[in-house]
Protein backbone atom coordinates (compact mmCIF):
# COMPACT_ATOMS: atom_id res chain seq x y z
CA UNK A 1 0.00 0.00 0.00
CA UNK A 2 1.47 3.33 -0.96
CA UNK A 3 1.89 6.29 1.31
CA UNK A 4 -0.72 8.20 -0.67
CA UNK A 5 -3.29 5.48 -0.03
CA UNK A 6 -2.44 5.54 3.68
CA UNK A 7 -2.88 9.29 3.73
CA UNK A 8 -6.24 8.94 2.03
CA UNK A 9 -7.34 6.39 4.57
CA UNK A 10 -6.11 8.36 7.58
CA UNK A 11 -9.26 10.52 8.01
CA UNK A 12 -11.46 7.46 7.74
CA UNK A 13 -9.37 5.63 10.34
CA UNK A 14 -9.46 8.63 12.65
CA UNK A 15 -13.22 8.87 12.30
CA UNK A 16 -13.56 5.18 13.00
CA UNK A 17 -11.41 5.51 16.10
CA UNK A 18 -13.46 8.44 17.35
CA UNK A 19 -16.64 6.50 16.70
CA UNK A 20 -15.26 3.52 18.57
CA UNK A 21 -14.41 5.74 21.54
CA UNK A 22 -17.81 7.34 21.54
CA UNK A 23 -19.68 4.13 20.87
CA UNK A 24 -20.51 3.37 24.50
CA UNK A 25 -21.91 6.83 24.96
CA UNK A 26 -23.83 6.72 21.72
CA UNK A 27 -25.36 3.40 22.72
CA UNK A 28 -26.80 5.11 25.77
CA UNK A 29 -29.34 7.79 25.23
CA UNK A 30 -30.99 10.27 27.52
CA UNK A 31 -34.59 9.90 28.47
CA UNK A 32 -37.12 12.61 27.84
CA UNK A 33 -40.32 12.89 29.76
CA UNK A 34 -42.98 15.43 30.43
CA UNK A 35 -43.05 16.82 33.91
CA UNK A 36 -46.08 17.39 36.03
CA UNK A 37 -46.48 20.86 34.66
CA UNK A 38 -46.06 19.66 31.08
CA UNK A 39 -42.48 20.80 30.77
CA UNK A 40 -40.15 18.62 28.75
CA UNK A 41 -37.53 17.23 31.08
CA UNK A 42 -34.27 15.53 30.18
CA UNK A 43 -33.16 12.70 32.45
CA UNK A 44 -30.70 9.82 32.58
CA UNK A 45 -28.06 11.65 30.62
CA UNK A 46 -25.27 9.27 29.57
CA UNK A 47 -22.13 9.48 31.61
CA UNK A 48 -19.94 11.85 29.65
CA UNK A 49 -17.98 12.77 32.75
CA UNK A 50 -15.95 9.59 32.51
CA UNK A 51 -15.02 10.34 28.91
CA UNK A 52 -11.27 10.51 28.38
CA UNK A 53 -11.54 13.99 26.90
CA UNK A 54 -13.79 15.30 29.66
CA UNK A 55 -12.50 13.75 32.85
CA UNK A 56 -9.14 15.62 33.03
CA UNK A 57 -10.98 18.90 32.57
CA UNK A 58 -13.14 18.37 35.62
CA UNK A 59 -10.25 18.77 38.05
CA UNK A 60 -8.47 21.59 36.26
CA UNK A 61 -9.82 24.22 38.64
CA UNK A 62 -11.74 25.83 35.79
CA UNK A 63 -15.48 25.63 35.41
CA UNK A 64 -16.32 22.96 32.86
CA UNK A 65 -19.52 23.86 31.09
CA UNK A 66 -21.93 21.33 29.63
CA UNK A 67 -24.22 23.07 27.20
CA UNK A 68 -27.34 21.14 26.20
CA UNK A 69 -29.29 22.11 23.12
CA UNK A 70 -32.56 20.39 22.33
CA UNK A 71 -34.32 20.57 18.99
CA UNK A 72 -37.80 19.11 19.05
CA UNK A 73 -40.23 18.52 16.22
CA UNK A 74 -43.64 17.63 17.56
CA UNK A 75 -46.42 15.74 15.85
CA UNK A 76 -47.80 18.96 14.45
CA UNK A 77 -44.52 19.67 12.66
CA UNK A 78 -43.72 22.49 15.00
CA UNK A 79 -40.00 22.99 15.58
CA UNK A 80 -39.01 23.96 19.09
CA UNK A 81 -35.66 24.74 20.60
CA UNK A 82 -34.52 24.65 24.15
CA UNK A 83 -31.62 23.63 26.30
CA UNK A 84 -29.87 23.75 29.60
CA UNK A 85 -26.54 24.32 31.20
CA UNK A 86 -24.53 22.37 33.75
CA UNK A 87 -21.37 23.88 35.17
CA UNK A 88 -18.93 21.83 37.20
CA UNK A 89 -16.01 23.33 39.01
CA UNK A 90 -13.61 21.49 41.22
CA UNK A 91 -12.84 23.56 44.26
CA UNK A 92 -9.17 22.86 44.80
CA UNK A 93 -9.03 24.14 48.37
CA UNK A 94 -11.99 22.19 49.66
CA UNK A 95 -11.57 19.38 47.11
CA UNK A 96 -15.23 19.26 46.25
CA UNK A 97 -17.11 19.51 43.00
CA UNK A 98 -19.38 22.54 42.86
CA UNK A 99 -22.12 21.94 40.36
CA UNK A 100 -24.76 24.28 39.03
CA UNK A 101 -27.57 23.07 36.78
CA UNK A 102 -29.68 25.65 34.99
CA UNK A 103 -32.79 24.51 33.17
CA UNK A 104 -34.87 26.13 30.47
CA UNK A 105 -37.20 27.31 33.18
CA UNK A 106 -34.41 29.49 34.55
CA UNK A 107 -34.17 27.74 37.87
CA UNK A 108 -30.77 26.81 39.18
CA UNK A 109 -29.83 23.82 41.24
CA UNK A 110 -26.55 23.95 43.13
CA UNK A 111 -24.75 21.06 44.75
CA UNK A 112 -21.45 20.28 46.31
CA UNK A 113 -20.14 16.80 45.74
CA UNK A 114 -17.07 15.38 47.47
CA UNK A 115 -15.95 12.92 44.82
CA UNK A 116 -16.07 12.06 41.18
CA UNK A 117 -18.20 9.00 41.82
CA UNK A 118 -20.77 11.11 43.61
CA UNK A 119 -20.61 13.56 40.76
CA UNK A 120 -21.28 10.81 38.23
CA UNK A 121 -24.21 9.66 40.34
CA UNK A 122 -25.55 13.19 40.50
CA UNK A 123 -25.17 13.44 36.73
CA UNK A 124 -27.10 10.28 36.13
CA UNK A 125 -29.85 11.44 38.41
CA UNK A 126 -30.04 14.86 36.84
CA UNK A 127 -33.44 15.95 35.61
CA UNK A 128 -33.27 19.17 33.69
CA UNK A 129 -36.14 21.04 32.04
CA UNK A 130 -35.05 21.66 28.46
CA UNK A 131 -38.09 23.47 27.04
CA UNK A 132 -39.63 26.61 28.41
CA UNK A 133 -42.59 26.01 30.74
CA UNK A 134 -45.13 27.57 28.42
CA UNK A 135 -44.30 25.32 25.50
CA UNK A 136 -46.73 22.41 24.98
CA UNK A 137 -45.92 19.59 22.62
CA UNK A 138 -48.66 18.33 20.35
CA UNK A 139 -49.92 14.83 21.01
CA UNK A 140 -48.19 12.18 18.96
CA UNK A 141 -44.58 11.35 18.13
CA UNK A 142 -42.11 14.07 18.88
CA UNK A 143 -38.64 13.77 17.42
CA UNK A 144 -35.92 15.08 19.68
CA UNK A 145 -32.27 15.82 19.03
CA UNK A 146 -30.07 16.53 22.00
CA UNK A 147 -26.65 18.05 21.41
CA UNK A 148 -24.14 18.36 24.21
CA UNK A 149 -21.03 20.54 23.96
CA UNK A 150 -18.39 20.34 26.64
CA UNK A 151 -16.58 23.65 27.08
CA UNK A 152 -13.40 23.79 29.14
CA UNK A 153 -14.22 27.03 30.98
CA UNK A 154 -17.13 29.25 31.71
CA UNK A 155 -18.13 32.51 30.06
CA UNK A 156 -17.25 34.42 33.21
CA UNK A 157 -13.75 32.93 33.23
CA UNK A 158 -13.40 33.77 29.55
CA UNK A 159 -14.33 37.41 30.15
CA UNK A 160 -12.10 37.60 33.19
CA UNK A 161 -9.11 36.25 31.26
CA UNK A 162 -9.74 38.63 28.38
CA UNK A 163 -9.83 41.63 30.66
CA UNK A 164 -6.75 40.34 32.50
CA UNK A 165 -4.87 40.14 29.20
CA UNK A 166 -5.99 43.62 28.20
CA UNK A 167 -4.96 44.96 31.58
CA UNK A 168 -1.58 43.22 31.31
CA UNK A 169 -0.87 44.84 27.94
CA UNK A 170 -2.02 48.24 29.17
CA UNK A 171 0.01 47.95 32.36
CA UNK A 172 3.08 46.98 30.36
CA UNK A 173 2.71 50.03 28.13
CA UNK A 174 2.08 52.30 31.08
CA UNK A 175 5.12 50.95 32.89
CA UNK A 176 7.28 51.55 29.83
CA UNK A 177 5.92 55.08 29.51
CA UNK A 178 6.53 55.79 33.18
CA UNK A 179 10.09 54.50 32.92
CA UNK A 180 10.67 56.85 29.98
CA UNK A 181 11.85 54.06 27.77
CA UNK A 182 12.33 55.09 24.18
CA UNK A 183 10.81 52.52 21.85
CA UNK A 184 13.12 50.96 19.31
CA UNK A 185 12.75 52.12 15.69
CA UNK A 186 11.28 48.77 14.75
CA UNK A 187 8.80 48.93 17.62
CA UNK A 188 7.88 52.51 16.72
CA UNK A 189 7.39 51.54 13.08
CA UNK A 190 5.10 48.68 13.98
CA UNK A 191 3.20 50.49 16.72
CA UNK A 192 -0.09 50.39 14.77
CA UNK A 193 0.41 46.69 14.19
CA UNK A 194 1.02 46.22 17.90
CA UNK A 195 -2.28 47.92 18.61
CA UNK A 196 -4.06 45.56 16.28
CA UNK A 197 -2.37 42.59 17.87
CA UNK A 198 -3.24 43.80 21.34
CA UNK A 199 -6.82 43.87 20.21
CA UNK A 200 -6.60 40.51 18.51
CA UNK A 201 -4.97 38.58 21.31
CA UNK A 202 -7.54 39.18 24.07
CA UNK A 203 -10.47 38.67 21.71
CA UNK A 204 -8.98 35.40 20.50
CA UNK A 205 -9.74 33.89 23.90
CA UNK A 206 -12.76 31.81 23.02
CA UNK A 207 -14.61 28.82 24.31
CA UNK A 208 -14.34 25.94 21.92
CA UNK A 209 -15.87 22.63 22.78
CA UNK A 210 -13.60 19.87 23.91
CA UNK A 211 -15.97 17.20 22.70
CA UNK A 212 -19.49 17.12 21.29
CA UNK A 213 -22.20 14.52 21.65
CA UNK A 214 -25.51 14.14 19.95
CA UNK A 215 -28.40 11.85 20.69
CA UNK A 216 -31.69 11.36 18.90
CA UNK A 217 -34.84 10.14 20.50
CA UNK A 218 -38.56 9.95 19.93
CA UNK A 219 -41.06 10.91 22.57
CA UNK A 220 -44.62 9.73 22.30
CA UNK A 221 -46.78 12.47 23.70
CA UNK A 222 -50.22 11.43 24.82
CA UNK A 223 -53.19 13.65 24.86
CA UNK A 224 -53.24 16.40 27.46
CA UNK A 225 -52.99 14.99 30.94
CA UNK A 226 -52.07 11.49 29.77
CA UNK A 227 -48.27 11.88 30.06
CA UNK A 228 -45.62 10.67 27.65
CA UNK A 229 -43.44 7.72 26.82
CA UNK A 230 -39.98 7.87 25.35
CA UNK A 231 -39.30 5.28 22.74
CA UNK A 232 -35.94 3.62 22.85
CA UNK A 233 -35.16 3.42 19.20
CA UNK A 234 -31.65 3.21 17.85
Amino acid at each position, binding site marked *: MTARALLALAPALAAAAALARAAPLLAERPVFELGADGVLVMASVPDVLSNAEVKPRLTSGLTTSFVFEVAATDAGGRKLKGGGLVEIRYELWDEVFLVTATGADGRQRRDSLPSLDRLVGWWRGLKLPVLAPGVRLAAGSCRLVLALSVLPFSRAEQSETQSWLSRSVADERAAAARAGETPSPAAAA*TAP*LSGVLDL*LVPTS*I*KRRSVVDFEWRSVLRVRAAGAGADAERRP
Partner: protein
Amino acid sequence: MSPPRTAAALVTLAALLAAALLLFEVGARQLTGAWFTFGVHPEVLRQLELSLADQKRLAGLDAAGAARYHRRFAAIESLLGRLRILEYNRDEVVGRYQAALLIVFGALAAAAAGVYLAGKVRQQARLDRLRAALARLSAGEVDVEVGERRRDLIGRVGAMVEETSRAMARDRRRLASLENLAAWQEAARRQAHEMRTPLTAARLDLGHLHGLLLGEDGGGDGGDGGRRREACSWPTACSRRSTAWAASRRRSPPSPASPSRASAATTSGPS
Protein backbone atom coordinates in the same frame (compact mmCIF):
# COMPACT_ATOMS: atom_id res chain seq x y z
CA MET B 1 13.86 40.93 -19.44
CA SER B 2 16.68 43.42 -19.80
CA PRO B 3 19.40 43.58 -17.12
CA PRO B 4 18.20 46.87 -15.55
CA ARG B 5 14.68 45.53 -15.26
CA THR B 6 15.97 42.32 -13.73
CA ALA B 7 17.96 44.31 -11.21
CA ALA B 8 14.94 46.45 -10.36
CA ALA B 9 12.78 43.38 -9.90
CA LEU B 10 15.41 41.78 -7.68
CA VAL B 11 15.72 44.92 -5.58
CA THR B 12 11.95 45.08 -5.19
CA LEU B 13 11.78 41.43 -4.19
CA ALA B 14 14.62 41.85 -1.73
CA ALA B 15 12.89 44.87 -0.19
CA LEU B 16 9.67 42.93 0.17
CA LEU B 17 11.42 40.00 1.80
CA ALA B 18 13.28 42.31 4.16
CA ALA B 19 10.03 43.99 5.15
CA ALA B 20 8.37 40.62 5.73
CA LEU B 21 11.27 39.38 7.84
CA LEU B 22 11.29 42.59 9.86
CA LEU B 23 7.60 42.33 10.55
CA PHE B 24 7.87 38.69 11.45
CA GLU B 25 10.80 39.34 13.77
CA VAL B 26 9.06 42.18 15.57
CA GLY B 27 5.81 40.26 15.74
CA ALA B 28 7.44 37.07 16.90
CA ARG B 29 9.10 38.96 19.72
CA GLN B 30 5.79 40.35 20.81
CA LEU B 31 4.10 37.00 20.46
CA THR B 32 6.73 35.20 22.43
CA GLY B 33 6.58 37.73 25.22
CA ALA B 34 7.12 36.65 28.75
CA TRP B 35 3.44 36.47 29.52
CA PHE B 36 2.88 33.95 26.76
CA THR B 37 5.98 31.85 26.28
CA PHE B 38 6.82 31.41 29.91
CA GLY B 39 3.30 31.69 31.17
CA VAL B 40 2.00 28.65 29.40
CA HIS B 41 5.17 26.63 29.79
CA PRO B 42 4.32 23.24 31.33
CA GLU B 43 6.96 23.69 33.99
CA VAL B 44 5.39 26.96 35.10
CA LEU B 45 1.99 25.34 35.32
CA ARG B 46 3.45 22.43 37.23
CA GLN B 47 5.18 24.72 39.72
CA LEU B 48 1.97 26.66 40.26
CA GLU B 49 0.14 23.43 40.99
CA LEU B 50 2.84 22.52 43.49
CA SER B 51 2.51 25.94 45.04
CA LEU B 52 -1.21 25.37 45.45
CA ALA B 53 -0.53 22.15 47.28
CA ASP B 54 2.06 23.90 49.43
CA GLN B 55 -0.41 26.60 50.44
CA LYS B 56 -2.88 23.98 51.54
CA ARG B 57 -0.25 22.14 53.49
CA LEU B 58 0.93 25.33 55.12
CA ALA B 59 -2.61 26.20 56.09
CA GLY B 60 -2.89 22.81 57.76
CA LEU B 61 0.34 23.35 59.66
CA ASP B 62 -0.26 26.97 60.60
CA ALA B 63 -3.88 27.39 61.60
CA ALA B 64 -3.35 31.03 62.55
CA GLY B 65 -2.26 31.95 59.03
CA ALA B 66 -4.79 29.77 57.26
CA ALA B 67 -6.73 32.74 55.95
CA ARG B 68 -3.61 34.24 54.47
CA TYR B 69 -2.65 30.96 52.83
CA HIS B 70 -6.15 30.63 51.54
CA ARG B 71 -5.97 34.05 49.90
CA ARG B 72 -2.64 33.19 48.39
CA PHE B 73 -4.05 29.89 47.24
CA ALA B 74 -6.97 31.67 45.58
CA ALA B 75 -4.63 34.09 43.82
CA ILE B 76 -2.46 31.28 42.51
CA GLU B 77 -5.49 29.30 41.50
CA SER B 78 -6.84 32.28 39.58
CA LEU B 79 -3.52 32.78 37.80
CA LEU B 80 -3.31 29.08 37.01
CA GLY B 81 -6.79 29.16 35.54
CA ARG B 82 -5.94 32.14 33.33
CA LEU B 83 -2.80 30.48 32.10
CA ARG B 84 -4.69 27.30 31.35
CA ILE B 85 -7.23 29.26 29.36
CA LEU B 86 -4.39 30.96 27.55
CA GLU B 87 -2.76 27.64 26.83
CA TYR B 88 -6.04 26.27 25.62
CA ASN B 89 -6.38 29.17 23.16
CA ARG B 90 -2.78 29.19 22.09
CA ASP B 91 -3.51 27.90 18.58
CA GLU B 92 -6.24 30.49 18.17
CA VAL B 93 -3.97 33.32 19.31
CA VAL B 94 -1.14 32.18 17.04
CA GLY B 95 -3.55 31.72 14.15
CA ARG B 96 -4.95 35.20 14.55
CA TYR B 97 -1.51 36.63 14.91
CA GLN B 98 -0.34 34.92 11.74
CA ALA B 99 -3.46 36.09 9.93
CA ALA B 100 -2.76 39.65 11.02
CA LEU B 101 0.82 39.33 9.85
CA LEU B 102 -0.36 37.88 6.58
CA ILE B 103 -2.78 40.76 6.06
CA VAL B 104 -0.09 43.31 6.83
CA PHE B 105 2.36 41.55 4.57
CA GLY B 106 -0.23 41.32 1.82
CA ALA B 107 -1.01 45.01 2.15
CA LEU B 108 2.67 45.85 1.98
CA ALA B 109 3.19 43.62 -1.04
CA ALA B 110 0.17 45.15 -2.77
CA ALA B 111 1.42 48.64 -2.01
CA ALA B 112 4.88 47.77 -3.31
CA ALA B 113 3.40 46.26 -6.44
CA GLY B 114 1.24 49.35 -6.90
CA VAL B 115 4.22 51.65 -6.53
CA TYR B 116 6.21 49.51 -8.93
CA LEU B 117 3.44 49.48 -11.53
CA ALA B 118 2.87 53.21 -11.15
CA GLY B 119 6.58 53.75 -11.68
CA LYS B 120 6.49 51.62 -14.78
CA VAL B 121 3.51 53.52 -16.17
CA ARG B 122 5.15 56.85 -15.41
CA GLN B 123 8.37 55.67 -17.01
CA GLN B 124 6.49 54.56 -20.10
CA ALA B 125 4.81 57.96 -20.32
CA ARG B 126 8.17 59.68 -20.12
CA LEU B 127 9.55 57.41 -22.81
CA ASP B 128 6.57 58.27 -24.99
CA ARG B 129 7.23 61.99 -24.49
CA LEU B 130 10.87 61.41 -25.40
CA ARG B 131 9.91 59.47 -28.50
CA ALA B 132 7.50 62.22 -29.56
CA ALA B 133 10.19 64.87 -29.06
CA LEU B 134 12.62 62.85 -31.15
CA ALA B 135 9.99 62.52 -33.86
CA ARG B 136 9.43 66.30 -33.89
CA LEU B 137 13.17 66.81 -34.02
CA SER B 138 13.57 64.43 -36.92
CA ALA B 139 10.70 66.19 -38.69
CA GLY B 140 12.73 69.39 -38.66
CA GLU B 141 11.02 71.15 -35.79
CA VAL B 142 13.34 73.42 -33.85
CA ASP B 143 13.42 74.35 -30.17
CA VAL B 144 11.83 71.06 -29.16
CA GLU B 145 10.93 70.88 -25.42
CA VAL B 146 10.78 67.43 -23.82
CA GLY B 147 9.72 68.70 -20.42
CA GLU B 148 11.95 66.35 -18.41
CA ARG B 149 13.40 67.90 -15.29
CA ARG B 150 14.54 64.80 -13.44
CA ARG B 151 18.18 63.82 -13.42
CA ASP B 152 17.82 60.13 -14.13
CA LEU B 153 18.67 58.43 -17.41
CA ILE B 154 15.52 59.47 -19.23
CA GLY B 155 15.89 63.01 -17.92
CA ARG B 156 19.46 63.19 -19.17
CA VAL B 157 18.45 61.85 -22.57
CA GLY B 158 15.67 64.44 -22.69
CA ALA B 159 18.14 67.19 -21.85
CA MET B 160 20.40 65.95 -24.65
CA VAL B 161 17.50 66.05 -27.10
CA GLU B 162 16.69 69.60 -26.06
CA GLU B 163 20.35 70.62 -26.33
CA THR B 164 20.57 69.04 -29.77
CA SER B 165 17.41 70.88 -30.80
CA ARG B 166 18.81 74.17 -29.59
CA ALA B 167 22.11 73.57 -31.43
CA MET B 168 20.22 72.73 -34.59
CA ALA B 169 18.15 75.89 -34.29
CA ARG B 170 21.30 77.95 -33.76
CA ASP B 171 22.96 76.39 -36.79
CA ARG B 172 19.89 77.01 -38.90
CA ARG B 173 19.80 80.65 -37.93
CA ARG B 174 23.50 81.00 -38.70
CA LEU B 175 23.03 79.24 -42.02
CA ALA B 176 20.18 81.55 -42.93
CA SER B 177 22.31 84.55 -42.03
CA LEU B 178 25.20 83.25 -44.10
CA GLU B 179 22.91 82.61 -47.04
CA ASN B 180 21.58 86.14 -46.73
CA LEU B 181 25.10 87.53 -46.61
CA ALA B 182 26.15 85.47 -49.56
CA ALA B 183 23.24 86.89 -51.50
CA TRP B 184 24.28 90.41 -50.60
CA GLN B 185 27.86 89.65 -51.53
CA GLU B 186 26.78 88.38 -54.87
CA ALA B 187 24.72 91.50 -55.38
CA ALA B 188 27.66 93.69 -54.38
CA ARG B 189 29.97 91.78 -56.64
CA ARG B 190 27.63 92.29 -59.55
CA GLN B 191 27.18 95.96 -58.77
CA ALA B 192 30.94 96.43 -58.48
CA HIS B 193 31.40 94.64 -61.76
CA GLU B 194 28.79 96.78 -63.38
CA MET B 195 30.35 99.93 -61.97
CA ARG B 196 33.89 98.93 -62.79
CA THR B 197 33.22 98.55 -66.50
CA PRO B 198 32.12 102.14 -67.13
CA LEU B 199 34.68 103.38 -64.68
CA THR B 200 37.41 101.57 -66.59
CA ALA B 201 36.18 103.09 -69.80
CA ALA B 202 36.04 106.48 -68.13
CA ARG B 203 39.53 106.01 -66.77
CA LEU B 204 40.81 105.13 -70.17
CA ASP B 205 39.11 108.13 -71.61
CA LEU B 206 40.45 110.32 -68.89
CA GLY B 207 43.92 108.90 -69.39
CA HIS B 208 43.64 109.63 -73.01
CA LEU B 209 42.50 113.16 -72.24
CA HIS B 210 45.31 113.49 -69.78
CA GLY B 211 47.79 112.51 -72.37
CA LEU B 212 46.35 114.96 -74.79
CA LEU B 213 46.43 117.76 -72.29
CA LEU B 214 50.01 117.12 -71.38
CA GLY B 215 50.96 117.05 -75.03
CA GLU B 216 49.28 120.41 -75.79
CA ASP B 217 50.70 122.29 -72.82
CA GLY B 218 54.25 121.12 -73.25
CA GLY B 219 54.80 121.06 -69.56
CA GLY B 220 54.10 124.79 -68.87
CA ASP B 221 53.47 125.71 -65.21
CA GLY B 222 51.16 128.72 -65.44
CA GLY B 223 47.94 129.13 -63.49
CA ASP B 224 45.89 127.37 -66.05
CA GLY B 225 48.48 124.60 -66.28
CA GLY B 226 48.12 123.90 -62.51
CA ARG B 227 44.36 123.68 -62.75
CA ARG B 228 44.65 121.34 -65.73
CA ARG B 229 47.02 119.08 -63.81
CA GLU B 230 44.65 119.04 -60.86
CA ALA B 231 41.78 118.25 -63.17
CA CYS B 232 43.77 115.57 -64.86
CA SER B 233 44.86 113.98 -61.58
CA TRP B 234 41.27 113.65 -60.24
CA PRO B 235 40.28 110.73 -62.48
CA THR B 236 43.52 108.99 -61.71
CA ALA B 237 42.95 109.31 -57.94
CA CYS B 238 39.39 108.28 -58.36
CA SER B 239 40.43 105.22 -60.31
CA ARG B 240 43.07 104.39 -57.69
CA ARG B 241 40.61 104.59 -54.83
CA SER B 242 38.17 102.41 -56.69
CA THR B 243 40.83 99.82 -57.38
CA ALA B 244 42.00 99.92 -53.76
CA TRP B 245 38.46 99.50 -52.45
CA ALA B 246 37.82 96.53 -54.70
CA ALA B 247 41.07 94.96 -53.59
CA SER B 248 40.26 95.49 -49.96
CA ARG B 249 36.86 93.89 -50.41
CA ARG B 250 38.49 90.84 -51.97
CA ARG B 251 41.06 90.55 -49.19
CA SER B 252 38.88 90.86 -46.15
CA PRO B 253 36.08 88.20 -45.60
CA PRO B 254 32.66 89.68 -45.39
CA SER B 255 31.30 90.19 -41.92
CA PRO B 256 27.81 88.95 -41.13
CA ALA B 257 26.46 92.43 -41.31
CA SER B 258 22.86 93.23 -41.77
CA PRO B 259 21.69 93.47 -45.35
CA SER B 260 21.06 97.17 -44.95
CA ARG B 261 24.63 97.81 -43.81
CA ALA B 262 26.04 95.60 -46.55
CA SER B 263 23.99 97.50 -49.03
CA ALA B 264 25.19 100.78 -47.63
CA ALA B 265 28.82 99.65 -47.79
CA THR B 266 28.39 98.50 -51.34
CA THR B 267 26.77 101.68 -52.46
CA SER B 268 29.04 104.02 -50.52
CA GLY B 269 32.28 102.45 -51.70
CA PRO B 270 32.56 103.86 -55.16
CA SER B 271 31.09 107.30 -54.36
